[in-house]
């Protein structure tokens, strides 16, 4: 039976078995490839998206369990109209291979929504589920602080 999903402000009708994880609905059905497959077991955070503003691992949310509006990295901002957090990522030249960064940015965006001025230990706490094999962590931390400051000034 087709399921209606609200993704980045649009409604998508998908016809897939109930247990297909949201990650694979987004990537292989809807064609939103910004959300990445890393491990399939919620151990790396590459697949992080927001459901009703909350950061979740989309590899662990079955299609039938999606409880609200989904926001992916594509819904956060575009190359021509980046969100403040994305601008901070560019300003600090965070990405190396870049594969984990969609998930890092979505996780950081939800942190800042809850906590507009996170401390280093709060960043540690919120971001430790997001793996980066390139080791970009120092610049992720700097970009989060800088986005926090910009968002408070705005």
């Amino acid at each position, binding site marked *: 039976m087709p399921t209606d999903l609200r993704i980045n402000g649009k409604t998508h009708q998908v016809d897939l078995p109930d247990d*297909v*994880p949201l990650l694979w609905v987004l990537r292989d059905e809807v064609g939103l490839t910004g959300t990445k497959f890393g491990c399939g077991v919620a151990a790396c955070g*590459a697949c992080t998206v927001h459901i009703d503003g909350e950061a979740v691992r989309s590899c662990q949310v079955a299609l039938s369990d999606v409880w609200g509006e989904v926001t992916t990295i594509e819904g956060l901002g575009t190359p021509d109209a980046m969100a403040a957090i994305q601008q901070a990522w560019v300003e600090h030249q965070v990405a190396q291979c870049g594969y984990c960064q969609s998930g890092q940015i979505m996780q950081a965006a939800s942190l800042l929504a809850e906590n507009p001025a996170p401390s280093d230990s709060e960043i540690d706490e919120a*971001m430790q589920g997001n*793996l980066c094999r*390139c080791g970009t962590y120092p*610049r992720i931390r700097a970009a989060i602080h800088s986005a926090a400051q910009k968002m408070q000034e705005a």
Partner: protein
Amino acid sequence: MASFKKIARRSFLIGSAAIVGGVAFGAYYVSRPAPNPLKPAEGEAAFNPFVMISNDKITLIAPRAEMGQGVHTTWAALIAEELDVTLDQVEVIHGPAATAYYNSALLGEVIPSKGYDKSRFVHSLGEALGHAGKLMDMQVTGGSSSMKDGYERMRAAGASARETLKLAAANRLGIASSQLSTRDGKVIAPGNVEIAYTELAAEAAGLEPVEAQLRHRSEWKLLGKAQPRVDMPGKATGTAKFGIDIRLPGMKFAALKANPHLGGAMNGFDASEALQMPGVEQVVDLGNAFAVVGSNTWLAIQATEAVAADWGPAPIPGTQAEIHNAIRAAFDAEPNSTLRDDGDVSALPQGAQEVSAEYEVPFLAHATMEPLNATALYDGSKLQLWSGNQGPLLTRNHCADASGIEPEQVEVNTLLMGGGFGRRGEMDFSVYAAKLARQMRGTPVQLTWSREEDMTHDFYRPGAMARMRGAVKDGSAVLLDGQIASQALTPQLMSRWFGMTPAGPDTALVDGAFNQPYGIPNYRIRGHAADLQVPIGAWRSVGASFNGFFMESFMDEMAHAAGADPLEFRLTLTRQEWAPAAKVLETVKEMSGWTGNAPDGVGRGVAMTYSFGTPVAQVIEVAEEDGLIRLKKAWIAADLGVALDPQNLEAQMFGGMAYGLSAAMFGEITFAEGAAEQGNFPDYDAIRMHTMPEVEVRILEEQSHISGAGEPGTPPAAPALANALFDLTGKRARRLPLMHDFDLLI
């Protein structure tokens, strides 16, 4: 073509004097330029294989794998510097697989000299051997070689295109080229007349390329300064396309399952249950693996578990203990190499104190963030392939072989890589996709590996052991005699890539040990090749990653035995041998405020490794917090000779260190019945936000040659941490990963 291959085989004898004759001939033969693979359309000009200008666009070709190291940006900056364009005016693409894109620096690195003491003869030998790269289809990204390779050639490509454009403008205006200048993609003529390069493309297309002198460094506008990376906006917005993101009309999604017993055969499989599962369309035999093809990657992955396959056994020992013993047994066999033998290590110098220790490190997976994958379409005459790979020509040739077609029938599209670290220099993931597409004529198919497939079918960083013997006297080292036992990498790699096994010593086995800039009067390093068939491969700095740990841990042990400060001990020995190595040590000493006396509850360790032309020193500080050990701070100094982009080099240095720390703390692959026992990040973790130290980097330019950046940050990480743990706890780490022996914060 046949004679090309013959020359290549003859000239590719690694580490033997036979190189000279072979390469001299080879070098003569390959000095002729390779054909330009760019096929300009009407009104476009392809000035050389690296610069293409049409009436509305300037395109620079950066034919090296972008796997996070920023190569597309810095490569383009080399061209742009001389072409007089800014990076926001151009499009940077990877371009096709072509011989013109051979790597002239990579092969030059395999000659068994120490490197830092490059004599003119050895240097020219390295360059000549590099030209043989063209014969070997070596459009390869690896060995931290891109900037060494591109530094002069790419500036020359930009300069030549600029002068050709000026000539086109001069012809149009009827004045001499010398009256013209260039700026921001335009030719400037007297009277403030400006002509955009794009307007000159058609006229310039008909001209012979003009050669030009390279500008002096003092005139650089882009190089030497931080450039915003061209791939950054895409990577911050999820719009960058990695291999796994390719979507083609009518494309099917497939999942791979290969024999977990590495190197074993597939004797057959029963797919009847899997074929009943939702979204599954077919199960395809790929030789020693099968692919489930369907409408969704996840459904395909689920169905692979429902296929009952009959797997043959692996041709490697059944237990980890037997593998360990096979490596240990290599010590008793004749050495594969003695690439350094200074002085006489047979006798203990009079009055010296002997020190000895044994070390061991495990096999390691690459664990790139993007699991392996490739996409292919076979239309009956042509195979199109989309894959993130570090060797497009080899990929083309291997896919052609596997599909029973000619290399010319294969088109390789190289995409962004979600990490490479050496793993994407292999062809297996592309070949599986090609084989699958060959059996699905007319239908594009993307073949993805689950994380478990990726981790259990790696070409692993080899496990290795070391027996170190040394002697100290009057506060310094007077003898170092090291034996390294591990599988030899080069023969396995060459056999897979080229179907040939080079003779001679394997430099990779002892890299990071024999070639260290320490002036120890009696200094010998022997490599012992283990008789073992575990699939091994290049892994960010490979040999230097384990030898760095062996050497620098042992240097620390010797320093303590000598009653010397570990940093001063290294400084004395490097000052005698090679000043740039001493300089990076002095720099981390200053940066970290090194006193040799860390306060209670704090430990500090230092290490310095010279690899891929670059000396890198690191100091790591650890502290005990709530009964657990936390990495607090790291200081890195590296000498790149010429720092083309300091901000990007900083990222490579702390990123390389992070990769080394991940392995040092957590990385370990073990085998049972020839199958890897770790399959996903919960069993094979890495450094994370809360375990990564704060880091400061300083980039130096003291040495005379430009050197590599992608790998040299990795080797000193493990020993610097191990030495810090010794400083904190008094316990010496002689095996990795450290999580087994220390209470690390995880």
